[in-house]
């Protein structure tokens, strides 16, 4: 209950951060706007319909990811240091609140805030796609169209579960990133932490590059081992970015639900790891 109380208060506090609201509003606005501008990016109407979708989806997911990453970084960087700045942490820890309860509450609050932000962006994203799909279906259903278009109209599904999986995967990477940054915020100053977090994301996002560096010809076996180790220890943010299935309906490789589940476990373990280390550090931290 103490953890829940701290988490709830954290959410209320975090959602009122102006900078977070700005990112959220801009992201949602641009996702909605993408409805219109995707049309100008293609040269044709029908054949372009699928490429419009593709662009819309990719843009939406990218927008969510980018805004969410900033929100994750900002939340992770500020949540705990602000408790010190406002001296609220003193009154809280002077109460019969165990230190792990405080940290866990903060983690939970950050994850809930990100959940709300992702939920808003994700809902906008899915509604945008569905609106677009309805429009495309209506066009395709018009009686003058022959079998060619008819075939592509059948392909335009109104709702695609892959969108939901994609949004969940997007959320999972926020979860991992903000947990790591929250952990770092116990050690580093806010500015250092922001860039550290961004770096962790960038390296994790480009893990394939890191791996191929490790496999590069001429690399010594020690170096190769180093790269391999790095790629296993850093969270693989690239693995959360697999819009293929969503954007490429012809791809029938694997069960997205199962993959998402696996990634969820992966993300949760990282979050747990960050939380436990944070608790270990915070127990010994002077406040």
């Amino acid at each position: 209950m103490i953890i829940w109380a701290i988490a709830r208060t954290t959410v209320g506090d975090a959602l009122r951060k102006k900078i977070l609201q700005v990112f959220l509003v801009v992201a949602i606005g641009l996702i909605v706007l993408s409805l219109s501008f995707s049309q100008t990016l293609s040269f044709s109407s029908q054949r372009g319909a699928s490429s419009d979708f593709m662009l819309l989806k990719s843009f939406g997911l990218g927008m969510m990811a980018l805004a969410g990453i900033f929100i994750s970084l900002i939340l992770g960087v500020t949540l705990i240091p602000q408790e010190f700045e406002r001296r609220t942490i003193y009154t809280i820890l002077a109460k019969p609140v165990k230190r792990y309860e405080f940290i866990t509450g903060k983690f939970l609050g950050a994850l809930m805030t990100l959940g709300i932000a992702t939920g808003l962006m994700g809902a906008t994203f899915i509604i945008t796609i569905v609106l677009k799909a309805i429009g495309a279906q209506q066009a395709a259903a018009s009686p003058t169209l022959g079998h060619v278009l008819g075939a592509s109209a059948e392909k335009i599904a109104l709702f695609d579960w892959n969108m939901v999986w994609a949004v969940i995967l997007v959320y999972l990477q926020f979860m991992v990133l903000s947990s790591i940054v929250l952990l770092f915020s116990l050690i580093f100053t806010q500015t250092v932490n922001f860039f550290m977090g961004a770096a962790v994301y960038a390296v994790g996002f480009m893990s394939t590059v890191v791996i191929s560096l490790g496999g590069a010809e001429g690399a010594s076996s020690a170096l190769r081992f180093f790269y391999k180790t790095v790629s296993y220890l850093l969270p693989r943010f690239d693995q959360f970015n697999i819009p293929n299935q969503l954007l490429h309906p012809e791809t029938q490789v694997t069960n997205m639900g199962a993959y998402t589940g696996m990634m969820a476990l992966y993300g949760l373990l990282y979050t747990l790891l960050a939380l436990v280390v944070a608790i270990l550090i915070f127990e010994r931290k002077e406040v």
Partner: protein
Amino acid sequence: MTIDKRKLLVAVVVVVIAAIVAIQLNLEPKYEKIVHAGKQIGDNKSGDMMAELPGQFIVASFTGFKQVIAGALWVRADEFFHRGHYHAIVPLVRMVTWLDPHNIDVYTTGAWHLDYNFVDYANTLSDKRYIPASIAFMKEGIRNNPNIWDLYFELGWTHYARKLMDNEMAAYYISEACKYDSVDVNTGAKQRRPEFVDRMKAHMLEKVGKLDEANEQWFAAHKRASKALEDYKKNPKAADWIDQSTIDLCNRNQSLLLLRRGWRYGDMKSYEQGLEIAERVKSPADWVQATSSARKDFESRKGKHWEGDAAKPVDAKFNASWLRAAPRVLVIKGTVNIIQASEYKGLASESFTRWYAENESAKADSKVKWRDGSRVYWRLQDADYVMPDVNKFDWTTNLENTVAWGDIYVGGGSFLTKLDMSDPRDLGMYPLKAEKYKLTIWMEPTDPGMPDFVQDRVGWRGEALMDKECIDTKTRPGYRLLKKEFILSRSDII
């Protein structure tokens, strides 16, 4: 917290790390499979772009690094191109120019790509419905880059001349190109317009029969090249490389213009001027020999009444027809009677052309060029199709339309081609949704791909062209061409 609890938590950390590595080992192959899944799909699918392009890439383009992102996207587009994933390129191209409107390569390559690369499987014909988009795209490029020659030339030559066979527009845009120099992308320094742009303007003016203007342009091109050569000799480091061959090229081409004017319209003054210029060129040897052959012809005609080669009417005996060979397969065939080089007997131009056609010392490809190689064109489209106005274009191409055209090589006075629209993969390119279709089969002397000897016989604008029923003077006002039109119903094709 007690020491025991801490030890427990440390143990938890170790276990969690082990679990993460274990899961990662399990996930990696799954992830690889998903990431590379898109690459196994065939080329005409449109999903490939995003399969490898994280959305962050696109969104990042909203940040300040527009050119960088544009460059990265363009590299991506190039990869897709080499893999044959053409449809994936189109949105990328739009986006790159949107981010970096001064990237000339993206306009030229993108527009060329639209014109040429969406081809059907059965006939390898390009999808003509994208041509308005291509031209509108080029025009947007020109609006964004109005002070360099590159895009004007590209629009005139690649799109109007080669693809639409509209020499008037081609001449206009290439003339525009001759008003500008270029800029070095890396240094921003002014870069001299290459000589071929000026020569191409003269050629295009000649093709559309603006002979005086063409002649003027040859003088201008000659002057410009001479000046460049002087500059280069004075200071080879500062000037672009140029040598005498460029000047010779101007002379040869100008002399040909003047000679043809002489031959075709019996203009002895022009004939003489042409010879004078031709004789200034001392190489290659076959040119010198052809020139002396023409000089003899000139001397033999001097002082005699002569109206020129193109004064004598030519009955084309144009005939064309179509038949349905199978559902969605049309065969177009016909005859045209004037075109073969073997007919050219007793013409003034013969002295020159026959030399090329028959001289053993001439190069093999030159021989072919002078012997045959004329073409007729066919065009099949929805009866009510009107090409979208590129000036009011909104980038969307209506892919419900059917528009196709192509050329047919004429050999021995007859032509034949098969238009196969039955391949299931081509149904999108040939939707055949309209009730009525117009099939046009025509031939025009000004076709830039047509050998010169055709105009030698019928004049620049087809003045000598005659036919009982197929002469058309409306399609291109001021020109005479051969044309036959059929209206087909949907059931005639399907």
